[in-house]
């Protein structure tokens, strides 16, 4: 047997607790989940092998189609809107100085400190068709607001609206990136007579492109996994669940129902793997596209 280098032994001593956790709580369950996804298992009795049956079922399950539709609709609106708004806030923050910038940064981040569940409960109230503040505000302009929480056509737009309140992290990341844009660059361009839009387009945006790219990926992944707020709003009790039909059925909500309400563990595992594959494909596409669009400095930071 080959002698194990003492260095290697030490490395594994340091890695051990984490490695055990990785195997027991991450890799093991991943493999188990993949296996379960090929079975029919409802906690009673032992899993029954059904091959690709569960995956075939997802393609035909009308609820899955509905949930995918809702989730994609939400993601397609939430990601561009939230990043555009956060970028606008970050750009404005970057142009003011001193204390005021800190105060605004804090205020913009406050919503992100709020538990998602509380956000959901709060917005169920704010979006209420009769007594909600949103419609009261629209009323000031003579607009009769929709029934955001009960009209199936308006539930998703309402959820998008709620998501736009949570711009904190995205704003903070973009703001930090803007701070790192060397001032000399924009100043040089200014002297050359470049207008504001031109400076933004050809200097600022390329310089922060990796941060923008990063928040696009992060926001897309988390939008696809939307759960907490929607669950607290529309699925917290039986009455709420029935009265909204499937207008607020998000993919992970349906997965949760299959697993922990109907105890279809095999089917839920298949749903989870479909989600995983979709996230992986989207991330890969974004990385591919990103590599073409993102400007990386020749010198990387530490690491």
């Amino acid at each position, binding site marked *: 047997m080959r002698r194990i280098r003492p260095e290697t032994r030490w490395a594994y001593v340091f890695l051990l607790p984490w490695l055990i956790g*990785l195997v027991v709580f991450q890799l093991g369950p991943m493999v188990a989940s993949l296996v379960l996804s090929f079975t029919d298992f409802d906690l009673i009795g032992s899993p029954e092998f059904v091959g690709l049956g569960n995956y075939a079922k997802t393609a035909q399950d009308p609820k899955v189609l509905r949930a995918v539709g809702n989730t994609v609709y939400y993601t397609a609106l939430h990601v561009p809107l939230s990043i555009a708004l956060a970028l606008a806030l970050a750009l404005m923050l970057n142009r003011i100085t001193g204390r005021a910038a*800190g105060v605004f940064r804090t205020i*913009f981040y406050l919503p992100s400190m709020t538990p998602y569940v509380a956000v959901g409960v709060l917005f169920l109230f704010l979006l209420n068709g009769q007594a909600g503040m949103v419609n009261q505000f629209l009323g000031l302009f003579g607009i009769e607001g929709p029934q955001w929480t009960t009209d199936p056509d308006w539930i998703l737009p309402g959820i998008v609206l709620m998501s736009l309140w949570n711009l904190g992290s995205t704003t903070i990341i973009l703001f930090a990136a803007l701070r790192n844009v060397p001032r000399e660059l924009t100043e040089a361009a200014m002297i050359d007579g470049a207008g504001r839009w031109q400076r933004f387009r050809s200097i600022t945006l390329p310089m922060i492109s990796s941060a923008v790219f990063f928040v696009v990926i992060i926001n897309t992944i988390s939008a696809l996994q939307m759960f907490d707020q929607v669950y607290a709003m529309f699925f917290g009790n039986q009455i709420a669940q029935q009265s909204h039909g499937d207008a607020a059925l998000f993919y992970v909500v349906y997965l949760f129902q299959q697993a922990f309400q109907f105890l279809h563990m095999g089917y839920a595992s298949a749903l989870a793997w479909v989600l995983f594959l979709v996230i992986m494909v989207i991330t890969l596409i974004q990385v591919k596209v990103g590599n073409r669009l993102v400007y990386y400095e020749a010198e990387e930071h530490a690491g």
Partner: protein
Amino acid sequence: MAVIPASPGSRPGARRLGRIGLHAALAAGGLLMLFPFVWMLLTSFKGAHQMLNTPLDWLPNPWRAQNYPDAFGALPFAQAYWNSFYIAVLNVVLTLFTSAMAAYAFARIRFRGSGLLFGLFLATQMVPQQVTVVPLYLMLAELGWVDSHLALIVPGFVNPFAVFLLRQFIRAVPIELEEAARLDGAGRWTIFWRIVLPNVRPGLGALGIIVFLASWNGFFFPLIFLNSPELATVPLLVSQFAGQHGATDYGLTLAASAISVIPMMIAFLIGQRRILNSMAMSGLGGR
């Protein structure tokens, strides 16, 4: 204040106007962010009779502070606070400790399998928790940990992001410090404990805050693993409360929400500079 050079041709008056406009736009944005909180607080003092008045009553009339003790008494909120708090603290301690050890190995020790392990670790970062949750549930049920806090504490420490972040920090510690200690006869563990950890304190602090928040605000796992009311965490209890009272008494429900939000708000306002810097630095913050 930094001097912002005027673009050629812009007059001081126009610049002044621009600055006022800028601050006004930011203030409007800030108001939109703050308003839901203000409205939550105001509403939490209103009685049920005030909810459907049109036009809306801005202020509670009368101020019903009773909503707070009522909400607090209806479900075991005091217990939930303690549950959320100690679970979050244990999550922080476990995550920081195991992640720092692993990060040190990845950052500073050359060993067989390093590349393979790190690749594996990066791959797990992309796996959504929905993939592992079903087998995790089955396994923890087998262990008898379902409906126990162990289900939230023990599996929580596997956090690839934490290892990644701390590895960056450890790499920035000057290697000379370690070499000097080694010459003095310090072993690996002493170096890790006495030299490396104290030098990455900002990283540990940032990570600790992120882990604490994620644990405190977490909902998916408590919802799945906990049943008994006395074991509930704060978000779980708020969701149950809204389920029971949401449609009938908004004042009471929003008082319950406010109860869940206020302590974090206060903690945030005290430590906000550090928290925001760490969020920007890590680029994540969980959401």
